[in-house]
């Protein structure tokens, strides 16, 4: 994303031949060719976000809407369920560093070129191809009271920790987070492998010659070079945690028990399509959008200060 913005500004500074006949012809072709994509995005993404903003201040039920005003937001901020849902999102944030660091470790090991590392890479990346719906269904059986997790625990002599995570208000979110971490492994590992392939080996060699140990090399030489990749993986993981878990939650817990696993994105769906409160749903969607936009801007800011 950031690179697109950076490069788009550079293209604007390119010399223009606006006055020549060719230049005019070119501009006309340019507009005609860009139009379909622009119109499609505008109609299905651009305009609806403003519609959502408008309807968020009404009592819309999908058919009729009466204007209420920005007080709808204040009203929602007094709803304890809303804060419960946001808390779930905040707790999911805690899974993000783990979902980034484990793959970084795996990529580091793969980068050591163990025998068959290419096969391992393909295996680790494979879950990326399957749907959250499928992952959720298996996870449901894994965490169930008579499921695999409890079998494993008793097999290792830990039978006394028997859990029924999914029927516990607090533990259910942990089960969702663990599943989420598992399914981010492939994507993030690939990102870090790509990053490690760009490392300049001569720098590490030079440091070793100068007597730096493996950890020192990793900390002072390799990690700083990987900064961009760490950042990309973190942002991608965060965006996924907030906007890609709908299907997982839908299948695994349905948002429950209670509101135990209802995140903001799931709350949008529930509010609008289960309870018919389209206006409130639109408002929750806008709040989600604002959170994501802040994340996006922060990332741009970080990139800029580095450069």
């Amino acid at each position, binding site marked *: 994303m950031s690179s697109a913005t950076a490069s788009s500004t550079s293209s604007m500074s390119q010399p223009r031949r606006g006055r020549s006949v060719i230049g005019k012809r070119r501009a006309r072709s340019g507009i005609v060719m860009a139009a379909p*994509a622009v119109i499609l995005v505008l109609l299905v993404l651009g305009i609806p976000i403003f519609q959502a903003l408008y309807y968020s201040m009404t009592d819309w039920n999908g058919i009729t809407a009466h204007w209420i005003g920005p007080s709808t937001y204040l009203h929602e901020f007094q709803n304890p369920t809303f804060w419960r849902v946001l808390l779930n999102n905040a707790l999911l944030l805690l899974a993000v560093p783990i979902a980034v660091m484990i793959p970084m470790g795996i990529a580091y090991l793969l980068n050591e070129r163990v025998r068959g590392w290419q096969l391992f890479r393909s295996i680790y*990346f494979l879950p990326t191809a399957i749907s959250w719906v499928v992952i959720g269904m298996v996870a449901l059986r894994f965490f169930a009271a008579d499921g695999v997790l409890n079998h494993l625990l008793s097999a290792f002599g830990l039978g006394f920790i028997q859990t029924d995570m999914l029927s516990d208000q607090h533990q259910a979110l942990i089960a969702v987070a663990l599943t989420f971490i598992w399914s981010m492994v492939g994507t993030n590992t690939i990102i870090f492998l790509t990053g490690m392939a760009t490392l300049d080996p001569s720098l590490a060699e030079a440091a070793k010659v100068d007597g730096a140990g493996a950890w020192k090399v990793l900390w002072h030489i390799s990690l700083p070079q990987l900064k961009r990749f760490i950042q990309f993986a973190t942002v991608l993981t965060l965006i996924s945690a907030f906007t890609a878990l709908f299907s997982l939650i839908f299948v695994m817990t349905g948002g429950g028990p209670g509101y135990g696993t209802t995140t903001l994105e799931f709350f949008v769906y529930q509010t609008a399509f289960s309870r018919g409160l389209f206006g409130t749903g639109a408002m929750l969607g806008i709040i989600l959008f604002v959170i994501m936009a802040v994340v996006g801007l922060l990332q741009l800011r970080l990139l800029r200060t580095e450069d």
Partner: protein
Amino acid sequence: MSGITVDELVPPESRQHAVTNTRRRRSPVKQILLFALMVLIAIVMLYPFYFMVDTSLKSNDQFLHGGGHSLESWTSLSKALPWGQQMVNSAIVSAAAIVIILVVSSLAGFSFAKLQFRMSGFVLMGVVAAMLIPVQSIIIPVYVNIAHLHLLNTYVGAVVVYAALGTPFATFLMTAYYRSIPDDVVEAGIVDGLSYSQVFRRIALPLSTPALITITVLQFIQIWDDLLVGLLFLQNPSQRTITVGLGALAAGRTTDIPVLMAGSIMSAIPAILVYLVFQRFLINGLTAGIGK
């Protein structure tokens, strides 16, 4: 470098080099430990696949009370889940959406990269910024708009939504790709008397095949695996995509787990096949976002 190289990010020679380099100086014990760790992680990652296959080969009774295998869940699968029809629905919807995405994003990418018109940089930024909009933020108005157009429960409605959701990233990728093609190539075509659309069709488009494949693979997996859009826009069981059919079956609290697993395997096969064949393109598309 302003654009991204969508093709191989690392030259193969340097990889070879690294292989010989690191392997030589590791002790065998360390090697074995490392290998064992890799195998352990592989088991963790593959376990769900094993679980699906193993469970699907049991009857519900065998699953609940342990022991034995049968094909019962496979023979009764089509009763619970019209998977044949739903796979066809998935194929229709994803193919149509992908065609739209490819057409609009390659046209727009070429325009943004090579035919800068007034404010084109600004327009590109707007299109790419749409990537930041979460589906959930616009899905309610879109749902009502589509309903007003009487396109709910038609393929058209779902296809348009999927196409629009995929277009921003595809346009970003195509623009970056066309930027990596020298301007001279376009100029030469114009000097030879071609129009800009001819240059696009005859020269630029064929050159961008790898990027087009990357977009196709990414979008196929995205759309095939999606639940939310299909759930809202295709509500008739006969029109549902396979993932939605499966999601609905699971949410209906079906207690026949083996049947659900058999259905999961069916739904996952196409995406896994595409993954196995086009893995490299998928990785390229994923890492394209990092380009500097």
